[in-house]
């Protein structure tokens, strides 16, 4: 056990190692950030198409959305990453960070879409009917009534999705990208510390701290959205 803490001391006192970890961490953050951004925007679009009232213009888009979410959610993320790298973007010199962002973004979109769809559908039908009976347009009803109530149901689950994406990006090391996970593996290799447990442990702390921060932010947002749920006005 003594050597474990010694090794941690060694890791933190070796600038190269810290440099590698921060480098990897930065890549993890970049991929996660843009993937989540793409995931939420595309996910929202898919959810809106999916929950829209049936019309002849939407038959094909609705079908495409259904097929998309089924395929994405029905196949392993690692496989999707490989397909993006070695089939779709098998172009020499194409920046791998962009491929990774797209792979995770397109994957996250399918899950975000389900979360947002569920949130929209969970709003009581009577809320929409109240708006209709008052002569309001479907657009007004969506933005003033349904969306604000749906967001309250969506935020916690969407926070979960953000956390999942951040951790899942660790598999980019499988296609040779130098993220936080890869940095830990690299530092732990025989050429360096010859101990995997210490750098892995430190990398885990990085993940944990990031996710803790995100959980904290999500909780704050949830709290501020919960104003209208107050049972009594004291």
């Amino acid at each position, binding site marked *: 056990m003594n050597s474990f803490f010694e090794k941690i001391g060694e890791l933190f006192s070796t600038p190269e190692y810290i440099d590698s970890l921060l480098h990897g961490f930065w890549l993890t953050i970049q991929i996660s950030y843009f993937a989540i951004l793409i995931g939420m925007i595309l996910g929202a679009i898919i959810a809106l198409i999916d929950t829209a009232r049936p019309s002849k213009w939407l038959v094909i888009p609705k079908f495409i959305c259904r097929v998309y979410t089924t395929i994405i959610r029905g196949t392993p993320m690692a496989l999707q990453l490989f397909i993006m790298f070695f089939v779709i973007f098998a172009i020499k010199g194409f920046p791998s960070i962009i491929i990774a962002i797209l792979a995770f973004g397109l994957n996250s979109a399918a899950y975000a879409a389900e979360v947002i769809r569920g949130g929209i559908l969970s709003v*009581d039908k*009577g*809320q929409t*009917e*109240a*708006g*209709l*009976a*008052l*002569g*309001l*347009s479907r657009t*007004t009803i969506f933005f*003033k*009534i349904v969306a*604000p*109530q749906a967001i309250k149901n969506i935020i916690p689950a969407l926070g979960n999705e953000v956390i999942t994406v951040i951790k899942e990006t660790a598999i980019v090391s499988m296609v040779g990208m130098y993220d936080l996970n890869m940095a830990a593996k690299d530092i732990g290799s025989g050429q360096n510390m010859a101990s995997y447990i210490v750098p892995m442990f430190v990398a885990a702390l990085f993940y944990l701290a990031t996710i803790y921060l995100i959980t904290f932010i999500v909780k704050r947002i949830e709290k501020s959205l919960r*104003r*209208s*749920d*107050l*049972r*009594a*006005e004291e």
Partner: protein
Amino acid sequence: MENTETDLKIKNLKKQFGKNKVLNGIDFELKEGERVVILGPSGSGKSTFLRCINWMEEPTSGEIYFDGTLVTEKNIRKMRRNMGMVFQHFNLINNLTVMDNLILAPVKLKIMTREVAEKRAKELLRHIGLPNKAEAYPASLSGGQKQRIAIIRAMMLNPEVLLFDEPTSALDPEAIGDVLDLIRELADRGMTIMIVTHEMGFAREIATRIVFIDKGRIIEEGEPNTFFSHPKTDRVKEFLQKVL
């Protein structure tokens, strides 16, 4: 304000949900100032009938004329401004305060300025004895308070007709009294009303006409005293025996 003018004329209205035929051809007329109570066993289609009038449910076939104009997909939104609706489960908008619930439609539809709408909302709130609830959210209100606010919300646009879909079915006895008092007051002021209810005493007291629906058809209709004391059909006799 001619008393003979027809507000609503319905011809051969049919509604089916999938294969389930709920309304099997309803012909109906409503004149200004009338108060029609719709009675019938559960599952008879009485709520569906009411909900078809303002297209909460789109009719499968048949025609609805409102103020002489055929109601269509295109003009229904405009028509709805003149047909207020009160729901069984109140349907106050949960993410808006009472005040915002009241002024949302008049302001959004540019019928009133915000100032005028707020002034009217405050008057109505004072009238129903809830002047201090303007900034409350629906979650903090009792059922009776919610329903009375839902009624004045429907009144904000000065509709020609008010449609009540079982307005007291989700309330406790004390709240029922408060809500019925408010409806009674609207009736006394000459409001044209259609109401689906299970409150027989109230129906008899308030109605100018009773319409009895069973299996998606109007079986019998008439003036309340005759309807309750001398029903013409066996079906109504049987129904009244059970509920009175």
